[in-house]
């Protein structure tokens, strides 16, 4: 099994990435909305967030023990292909869970 990353740790990772692309957003939590009418960022901000997350997660996974390394599927492409219009990208928390599933489901 590829390296697991605990969901609450991933929430912090997503939150940190969100802070770096949208420093005006305050009190980020798992419930902070990323898409929809009440989203704290627009579509441009979401693109920046996903690319930033991809970079930091890819680096982190590369630094994992050799038997746990793998290529994370591009979050950006998933979002562009329409998967992002659904639940995985709805909030900080749902995005963190989605990433955790991607990581742990890799054989």
């Amino acid at each position: 099994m590829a390296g697991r990353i605990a969901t609450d740790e991933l929430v912090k990772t997503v939150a940190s990435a969100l802070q770096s692309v949208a420093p005006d957003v305050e009190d980020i939590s798992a419930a902070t909305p990323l898409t929809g009418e009440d989203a704290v960022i627009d579509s441009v901000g979401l693109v920046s967030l996903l690319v930033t997350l991809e970079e930091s997660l890819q680096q982190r996974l590369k630094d994992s023990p050799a038997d746990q390394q793998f290529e994370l599927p591009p979050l950006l492409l998933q979002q562009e292909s329409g998967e992002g219009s659904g639940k995985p990208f709805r909030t900080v928390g749902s995005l963190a869970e989605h990433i955790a599933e991607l990581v742990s489901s890799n054989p």
Partner: protein
Amino acid sequence: MVEPIRLLLVSDFTISGWRPFLTPEFKTIVAPFGQAAATLMDGNSEIWRDQPEMACVWTLPEMAVPAFGELLEHKPVTLANVLADVDMFATRLHAAANRVQALFVPSWTLPVYDRGLGVLNMSPEVGPAYFLQKMNLHLAESVREQGNIHLLDAGRWLSLAGQGATNPKLWFAGKIAFGPAVMKAAAEDLKAAARAVMGKSRKLILLDLDDTLWGGVVGEIGWENLNLGGHDPVGEAYVAFQQRLKTLANRGIALGIVSKNEEEIALQAFDNHPEMVLRRDDFVGWRINWRDKAENLAELVSEVSVGLDAVVFIDDHPAERARIGQALPDVLVPDWPTDKMLFVQALAQLDCFDTLNITAEDRSRTAMYVSERKRRDLHKGVQSLDEYLSSLDLEITVEALNSANIKRATQLLNKTNQLNLATRRMTEAELTAWNETENQAVLTYRVADRFGDYGLTGLASLQFEGSQANVSDFLLSCRVMGRGVEQTMLHVLSLIAERSGATVLRARYFATPRNVPCKRFFDEKSGMSLEEDGDQARYSWDLSQPLPIPYYLRLRDPGQLLGDGPNSLIVATL
């Protein structure tokens, strides 16, 4: 609460992602994507209806300069072709700059991952890096005369961001040219630039001594044993820090000391240590004693006559920094590294000193403040205010606004708050145009005494309407307040008005949160009569005679503005 500045963003890439970094200082308006040239040229377009106060035009070199785009495709292109396109771009900037107070233009950059032509990148014939530098330099020269177009060093932002500066994924997904680290650095520089435009740069650094300017506690070990210079890396770091501070002083940032020490022991270190870069006369004042630093700092700032919001406090001790930060929240107290070898870097990274010009007067500001310190010492030794003022041997030189003093005059107009009647803010071009309008004139006043030259510290403007002469601007640097200069400025205005045939001189005060001292002067010391009181108080003087000039002042009029010659400001046609 300060109103955000309305900022128009014009770009040929998706720039809306920059907006979160620009709050709360700016309220941003984004020009339509792909219409940079049209937005700049068409002042009637809807985007200008919100009347932005400032604008930022951030473009990609291959889009804004088509010939450069062809160079990148290895088509045959000459430098002349490229610079002609730069001139066209500059024309668009000039058109837009006339609609805003300030226009900021990040310099052109290329993606950091792109090696270009490698060894040929700096070739004068084909090198993209060479051409890019030429383009940026040519643009800087082309916009210099406009006065309110300011190029920003975007190359530094990309250097800070490193590999994350540009990412092709961002471009393909959303036409986003730069990563968030670039956006963050860019926003910090833009905010610093806006503060410079608004006259809110910091002007005074107050420093601790022990383990800040030198290593060791001077009261414990004596000046001979301080860690300063020598072959010690930390000693060298302290010297470099002092050198950097001196560099700031050379461009007009004043230095002062607030330290818990025995004054004489501390000052001996400045007088005697062979590796000390800073000496007594590099400081505009000091409070070296055992009192609370917040009280000392407030006193010293008041003595130097700047606002607390013009001050930066640097101290190695976190508790002292916390004390000042809590007691005097308007003072900037930057976090300070514990590693002494990083002091010079921390100082170099501060973005609170940006100014739009560095004038000869800025360069001599420390000397002026030191002279002021000596005047204060004299004042302590004389019996009365009149005696003191008489002993100063004050001389005021009045000059018309001209090409030699326009920069300093504009700086003064835009930075003076306390003794400022109308608080009008204008660019160089606007002030020049106002001065050149018939029946209007701007005068500048230079002040000197036996201790030194204060420089150009006063500005007043006059506008004739029939038989009435109106004082449109009246402002004076706070460092020469209260010495009769104000009365002399009014005396000159009333002379010109009276000799021009006006029968009444009027002045309208416009209240701001900071110019109460100006109202107090007009109420109590100007000699003019109060016609209407309130936030727009109006004053008048019957011009059957001019307003008096204090007996102890000398007035010089080298340009014969008050006489009958060709330079006279006496209006003959009233």
